[in-house]
């Protein structure tokens, strides 16, 4: 078993649980009508974001997707600022101007959730080029879904990252559905063979297993930092909710989500693993769960009570100068 110290395990569990509670809570709050627009929830996929991002630091960049809350939390974005942003509040992480699909924190290396499927991979090539040119030692990670894996931007980025030998990791999070369309139908060939075809390593990863993700990401990040170029992880996982909130999920099999929650829950698997091996005590995990729960309660209360943007905010931040 991968050797991780207790602090890292505590951090991993805290982050995964924070994402889960954040998303479960956004789900219930959205149903009240309090949250504008549409949101895409990451619950069920936590091990992927956390397993990857725990291998990164603030000078490394990630680009996310429309399903971005988990990546934001895993990369260190402030949960209160995120919740306020999702509510469209003035002191949200983006001043209430971006919302769920555009949460970003450049100081944390989070280049933005992205409303355009396949929008992130070219940007990440640029962040990796900056790291290489400026000699920061940084790497850059593009999260894409199985849907995004079919976009030309993604495939072009595989090629450019290889040709320019960029420190990039492409993480294809395959939750089985691009909106309603099954990845089994929509993806030609195999994700890892696609990587191979572009001359980079590709690895299948169990996205419900934090340890599998962490180890695979560690290898890819080390490779990128060493100047050995891009690689790809094909992370298989499942989403607990629909494509967006309000999706009745008529396209999913009966009992599919229940089975996913029962048998493939990354948090349950993590708990079992660390307690059975004696790395962490059950009480310790219970305590983290209580703290996370309180933190999310506070974030929601803070967001509900926060002020909306002011009228003058409409016209600011379009340009640095104009």
């Amino acid at each position: 078993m991968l050797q991780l110290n207790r602090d890292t395990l505590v951090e991993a569990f805290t982050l995964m649980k924070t994402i889960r509670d954040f998303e479960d809570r956004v789900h219930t709050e959205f149903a009240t009508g309090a949250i504008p627009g549409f949101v895409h929830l990451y619950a069920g996929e936590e091990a992927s974001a956390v397993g990857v991002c725990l291998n990164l630091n603030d000078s490394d960049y990630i680009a996310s997707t429309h399903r971005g809350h988990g990546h934001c939390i895993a990369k260190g974005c402030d949960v209160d600022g995120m919740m306020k942003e999702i509510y469209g509040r003035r002191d949200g992480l983006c001043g209430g101007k971006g919302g769920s699909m555009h949460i970003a924190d450049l100081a944390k290396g989070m280049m933005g959730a992205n409303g355009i499927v396949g929008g992130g991979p070219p940007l990440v090539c640029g962040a990796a080029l900056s790291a290489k040119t400026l000699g920061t030692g940084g790497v850059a990670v593009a999260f894409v879904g199985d849907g995004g894996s079919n976009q030309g931007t993604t495939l072009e980025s595989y090629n450019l990252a290889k040709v320019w030998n960029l420190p990039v990791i492409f993480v294809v999070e395959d939750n089985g559905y691009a909106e309603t369309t099954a990845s089994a139908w929509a993806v030609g060939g195999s994700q890892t063979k696609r990587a191979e075809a572009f001359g980079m390593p590709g690895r299948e990863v169990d996205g419900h297993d934090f340890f599998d993700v962490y180890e695979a990401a560690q290898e890819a990040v080390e490779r990128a930092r060493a100047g050995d170029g891009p690689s790809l992880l094909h992370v298989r996982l499942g989403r607990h909710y629909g494509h967006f909130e309000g999706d009745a999920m008529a396209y999913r099999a009966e009992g599919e989500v229940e089975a996913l929650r029962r048998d493939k829950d990354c948090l349950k698997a993590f708990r079992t693993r660390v307690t059975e091996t004696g790395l962490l005590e059950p009480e310790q995990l219970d305590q983290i769960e209580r703290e996370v729960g309180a933190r999310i309660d506070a974030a929601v209360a803070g967001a509900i009570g926060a002020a909306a943007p002011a009228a003058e905010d409409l016209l600011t931040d379009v340009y640095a100068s104009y």
Partner: protein
Amino acid sequence: MSKKSYRQAINEALAQEMRRDPTVIVMGEDNVGGMGAPGEDDAWGGVLGVTKGLMPEFGRARVLDTPITESAFIGAAAGAAATGLRPVAELMFVDFMGVCFDQIYNQAGKFRYMFGGQGTTPLVIRTMYGAGFRAASQHSQCLYPVFTHIPGLKVVIPSSPYEAKGLMIQSIRDDDPVIFFEHKVMYDDEEEVPDEPYTIPFGEANLTREGGDVTVVAIGRMVQFANQVADKLEKDGIGCTVIDPRTTSPLDTDSILESVAETGRLVVVDEASPRCNMATDISALVSQEAFSALKAPIRMVTPPHTPVPFAPELEDLYIPGPDQIEAAVRAVAGYRA
């Protein structure tokens, strides 16, 4: 000061900024030329030679050739701009925006607003535009109105070598995404251009001719034609003020409105397709803000609403020229209600 071509002026601006600022990089298809090929290095310097000589001075780490993959490298330029570099990326022909536009208008152009003012995106996209090269429908368009439409982008259209150098240096130093339009038939045009670096600010129009009877606003290459017409008509007693806006975003609306307030007559000359172009935009501005000053209907001189044709006889008919501008100026000058 010496005579320099439009091509040399842009090349000199790039080289001087690369010397001044190590974060300035250049990238594009064949910007060096011959990458991985057995022949000579720096084989092309871009398809029309604008970036020639940069790689030998600055090396391949700062002058990057790309595969033909506009979505990836224009997006990479946007991502690099958001993370510490000042990339000048070449979109060879603006007609190719169709294969990478998302990275320009949904990504680079919106970062700052969507992210609540976080960060800057000091990206320059150099791109060729315009008809007259017998390059047919997919290599000849004037798509600057499309970019001008997008909040978050700045659009620069230099009308001469002097303008090109000063506006390019300003573009590189600017902290917002800039689309820099180079007219492909102007690369060999020459004029006196200072050797030292200088900037021309955005949003400040250049009055290339001054006269009291008609205001002619012209964009890009059309400024030359408007100047020719102004010089000719001055001898006939018709005085034209020719306004080169230099940038369509930001647009110097004050200079246009002030001039129309004096002349009461406006002709707008735009090589872009006639629906929703700069001519309609500027005409609407003047109609709304200076209606009472107008002594004649506004005239727009544009190509027809067709793709750019190939046959030289047709393309010559397509491009607005001095004859049409002269006819429009004479019509508004002689207009009686």
